[in-house]
């Protein structure tokens, strides 16, 4: 009984997809009468019956539709990587550190777009922390402004090694 209900729901959902009605988007999609009332014991009936097995993962599979796509249950589809950032402030100078994604290198030196920063902090000592960086960002800049020498900011550029499996580190000494 349970299986047939699930099958029915599955078929109906296929029907709705075929009608272009997915996403709840379509008021024109057929809306069957409410055939299922509140399940009586849903929590007790863990869906062990219907989860036959985790579908086989095949990294090289070609799928005709995203509805067929099979993904590891533990893969969260995150589009970022972790980056350990540290700055060793040798003389404990009063400084301001920014880590940003957009900058240009021109005739007048480096120009940072401070609207593209992931980290901004004033420091009097060392700094270390972890950033969550978007996968499409492979080049970052650290800008260090010293309050006792505003004419000479320091810039350090970091390039991502996308092949590495290690924790990525952006360390400035």
């Amino acid at each position, binding site marked *: 009984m349970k299986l047939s209900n699930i099958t029915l729901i599955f078929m109906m959902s296929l029907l709705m997809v075929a009608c272009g009605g997915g996403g*709840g988007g379509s008021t024109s999609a057929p809306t069957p009468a409410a055939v299922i009332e509140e399940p009586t014991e849903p929590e007790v009936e863990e869906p062990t019956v219907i989860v036959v097995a985790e579908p086989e993962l095949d990294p090289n599979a070609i799928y005709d539709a995203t509805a067929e796509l099979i993904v590891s249950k533990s893969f969260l589809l995150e589009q970022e990587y972790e980056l350990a950032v540290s700055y060793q402030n040798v003389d404990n100078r009063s400084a301001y550190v920014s880590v940003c994604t957009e900058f240009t290198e021109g005739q007048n030196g480096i120009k940072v777009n401070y609207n593209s920063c992931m980290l901004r902090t*004033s420091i009097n000592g060392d700094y270390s922390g972890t950033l969550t960086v978007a996968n499409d960002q492979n080049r970052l800049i650290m800008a260090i402004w010293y309050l006792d020498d505003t004419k000479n900011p320091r810039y350090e550029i970091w390039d991502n090694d996308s092949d590495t499996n290690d924790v990525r580190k952006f360390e400035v000494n």
Partner: protein
Amino acid sequence: MNIYIIWRVFCSLHNSHRFYVEVEFTMLNSVRRNTVKGIILAIGMTNVGLHAESFSECPAEAFLIQDKIANLYTVQLATGFYEKFSPNDWDQEKMNALAFSIHDRYLYAFNYYYGTIVRIGADLQVDPIFLTNLPDKGFYVGDISVVENAYYLYRPGGNYGLYRVSLDENSNDYLQLGNVVDGTTLNLAIYDLAFHPDNGFAYAVDRWGNLWKINVQAGTSENLSNVGEAGVFGAVYFDVTGNLYISRNNDGNIFRINTNWDYPVAEFFAYGPSSSNNDGARCALAPIISQENPTTDFGDAPDSYGTSINNNGARHDIEEGILFLGEIVESEPNAYADNGSGVDDNDGIDFVTGVAAGTTALVDITSSAEGFVNAWLDSDKDGEFDADEQIITDEAVTAGSNVVAYDVPTWAETGTTWTRFRLSSEESLSPIGGVADGEVEDYAIDIAEQNVTSLHYPSSETWATLAFEDHWPLVGDYDMNDLVVHYRLSSYAVEDTLMRVKIEGEIVAIGASYHNGFAFRLPGLLRSEVDTGRLSFKINGVEQSATPLEADVDEAIFIIADDLWDFVTAGENCKFYRTEAGCGSSIQMTFSLEIPMEANVNKTNVADFPYDPFIFASQGHERSYVFGEAPGRRFEIHLKNQAPTETFQANFLGRGDDTSDATNGEYFINANGMPWAINIPYEWEHPVEYMDIMYAYPHFHSFVTSSGELNVDWFTFEKSTQDNVFKQ
């Protein structure tokens, strides 16, 4: 590449009837000067053997005549910008009592060489008009009425007074000068007068600042007020809305007086040209800024700061094109008026350090040339730039980068506020009013706590994107556009203490007829740890009176909207909001949340970015047949493997295609492991309605099947199939 074409047309028909046209082409990166100046068309010759050509239209500029050897200038009253209109070889002696006639669109003046009035054409030809009964001295006060074609001239003293001369060739008294009243009876210490655009009265301000309303038929005057500014106001002008502008000779300051007020007073308006000998005129029927060809730059801050022309907003004339902030400056007829170029000219100020209360901050100011910078920071967040909120005063800058240090007040309040930077050759400026050169740039910035570390996702001014399929627990069509939200997150911590969180976003698309609410949970944060007194929640820039904090729960959950369809509408003949081809509209809903914490919230207890954004069913709206009744707030959809909130009805899990397994920490996934929501740290372009994401982003499948090993940047513009993503 955009190419601006600039036409500059100079007409010089003076004497020799020479006429030349200069056309200038310029590229985007050079200073854009899109004005069309001085397009002057001959309308035709008229009576009395005069040959000058009339103006083709009612000009927005004012005219100013100065000096013993006369020079005629055009003046932008909004900014005080002026440029010489007459040629160097104009060779005219002193003129005064300048007037613009709306009846024939000529300038008139009293000319001391001819000893009578003259008519001045758009081609600057000067034709004398000889009158009978002229007194033995010249006139330096005069204007032409708007409601009748007559020129009124005034000189104080018992032997003189107010005179009228008809310029209407069909009238019986055409060109006959008549004395209306003697200068003892009408005794005013005035240096110019101007006619109101429609009420028939002339107005003038005397040397003590008294505003006079003059009945020119009766020869009487009424003192309306003292405007609060004294001096010789040698040039006065009206605009079409009844504002009187008065220009003071000794310092060139232009003041605005709204004559519609019961007790009109002067407000400083712009820095204009100064002169000992000054007379002005303009077409009283024109607005003071040309709507078609503005030359004015305005700021962007809310109007409580003084931004639009109505509020005497900060504004700069950019006609000269030499002095500006950053790489470009754009003209606009008023603040908030989109000139359609799509170019952001707010490019001159870099906040190279953060702005923290009680600390020294650095800003990098890029100037095109030498000038002075004045800047303000609304430190108390009251929506105004007060005198004690000036952070940079008369700072001399040179071309290129200028790093300037300034002190943020100790009493500055944390959170989002506005700054204003003004560059000009004028050394001292106030936060409002017009000036003849330079640029104003306003920035929304964050005032932080001292020693704060701020983290931003995906960065301080870029967007991440949430894309939901809302058919849960049934599999949808994977166009990933049932709800699309752009958002960014910021957290502010001092060492291990979380001080504040900021959430900003905009509703980008709704490709669903289901009614969804949208919320953020901050996992690990309790409702009681939020400082509700300082909590700020804005929708479309407007502070909301209702708290976004969900009631009757322990966790801190912020409801952005109970039903997003309350805030957006589908386009004409469209079913959805910004998902179907041809159904573009502007973004209709933005939101921002500033969440200050009570003391001692440990940041390690609170989840990392992106927290827990989720959608829920709007109350009273039916969902799919899986639910026997409208599930309302008990229905939620979260990102993959994110546990629902305490309000969620647990037995919804496992229905339909959902295969959540709470014991394994698996939530909101189907049998294939696919979720109903994805998060992308990018300003993502969503697929058009009914378009499977695989056709809009061909590398998405590879990214997923490789568990994130391959094609990690599948979501970028470069990797998209542009034909299959939504375009506005």
